[in-house]
């Protein structure tokens, strides 16, 4: 299955990944082969089979509602590129 150039560009934008013009053909082919695999799976008769939300035969364990994580701001913000007054600073995200 082929995947169009504009679809690659849209996916790249949504994923915030830069894909250069020179690699776009290769990426398209590789993604296409993933889709071929999916196509094969689609061909399997799944009538009467319940949709599976997780491959493991296990169920989610639940946690008691007790505070276990205390303030670690100082440690966690040491690796942030920019902070001020306890806030993480990022390039302005609103016009």
């Amino acid at each position, binding site marked *: 299955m082929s995947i169009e150039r504009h679809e690659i560009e849209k996916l790249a934008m949504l994923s915030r990944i830069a894909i250069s013009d020179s690699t776009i053909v290769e990426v398209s082919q590789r993604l296409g082969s993933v889709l071929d695999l999916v196509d094969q799976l689609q061909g399997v008769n799944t009538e009467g089979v319940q949709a599976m939300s997780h491959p493991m035969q296990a169920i989610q364990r639940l946690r*008691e509602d007790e505070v276990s994580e205390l*303030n670690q701001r100082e440690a*966690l913000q040491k690796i942030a590129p920019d902070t001020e*007054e306890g806030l993480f600073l990022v390039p*302005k995200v609103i016009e």
Partner: protein
Amino acid sequence: MKWDTVIGLEVHVQLATKTKIFSGASTAFGAEPNTQACAIDLAMPGTLPVLNKQAVHYAVMFGLAIDAEIGKESAFERKNYFYPDLPKGYQTTQLEKPIVGRGNVEIQLADGSTKNIRIHHAHLEEDAGKSLHEGDFRHGVSGIDLNRAGTPLIEIVSEPDISSAEEAIAFAKKLHSIVTSIGICDGEMSQGSMRFDVNVSVKPSGSDTLGTRTETKNLNSFKFMEECIVKEVERQIDLIEDGGTVIQETRLYNGDTKVARSMRSKEEANDYRYFPCPDLLPVIVTDETIEELRRNLPELPDARQARFVEEYGLSDYDASVLGNDAGMASYFEIAAKTSGSAKLAANWTMGELAARLNNEDISIANSPVSADQLGGLVTRIVDNSISGKMAKEVFEGIWAGEGSADEIIEVRGLKQVSDSGALEQMVTDVLAANQEMVDDYINTDEAKRKKKLGGFMGQIMKASKGQANPQQVNQILAKKLNELL
């Protein structure tokens, strides 16, 4: 041309858990920025979510409250988008298998009629952090506070059964009433505990085809929601009547400027690429858990309203005002029990107290006058220690923190004079001092005499500094004047 309005609501309700949905960080409101955001909330590599049991139980309780199907097996998915207040790059939410299925919410309208609004489903998800665009920090940057990131939410999605702003408000208020009554949300709108996304479209009256809808996001007050719907309906009708078409878009409403604007441009149209979250296993809620939660489900607003009529003899109107607000309901019950007069306790709770709280924008949970104190005040009205007028003065005193009703009555010397001997003397003195008024009363035509009583009352109340029991004075006065005829 006549138009029909079609409205659907998505309501985000912050659950009143102590910790986040997937981490053990606190959810307490108002903490210093990022002091309640742990490695999991910050999406540090290698961290994994562990689901909060209480959040699951609260969601099930909501399902039970609206008589919905409970998703005994539910699952989490990832909704992918980039925004700085969402560190993981996706929101963990539910799509295919939500925890609450179809349900129903009945709303009451101003004309007394009721309407059923179907709930499509409600699902569990995490809240995002907050982006601050204006602050003391440098130009050209936004500040990110991730304390709210990972706060558990249920998103309640209605069917498009709502056909006016009035119905939308009634529905929103009913949901507020339900979630606060069963204690799964603190209901503090100003803190963002409940937020509404409103989907609005219009279609020619009677048509079966839905029009194109717009979605206005993140309304956090009933008033803004009403204004926003009224304006959006008007905008869409004007647009279509002028030959234009409504574009499907997301809009933001600014409550201060009363202006809505389009939020996302077309090329960034929603494409969330949902897929099942591999970090979370299916969530199973057993029948035993469901039954236990059902047994312990607190009283619902409709049941409480009926009980208020039955148990306290309140009117339907009073019972609906008090019964629909969890905070007011429990306040009223304490005041009624303390004072022994449900009717007066209801009047004071809905009247003086509610007006004052509203004026000063204080929630009833933070009322400077406690329910016990109001009950104490009502007790003194009931036993005729103070008049209604003096009671207002005492109320002011309690509000200002001067103590209980009894303490204020004592300190200010407000006790009403109900001793009939003292009152008779007072009336006699006033009559003696106002011979002209007495003569005038006697010479007035019988039918018009009643009007003249007011003048005497004024004099007597003045002489008693407002402390005479007015009903008793009225009787004594009428008796004494009749003796003179």
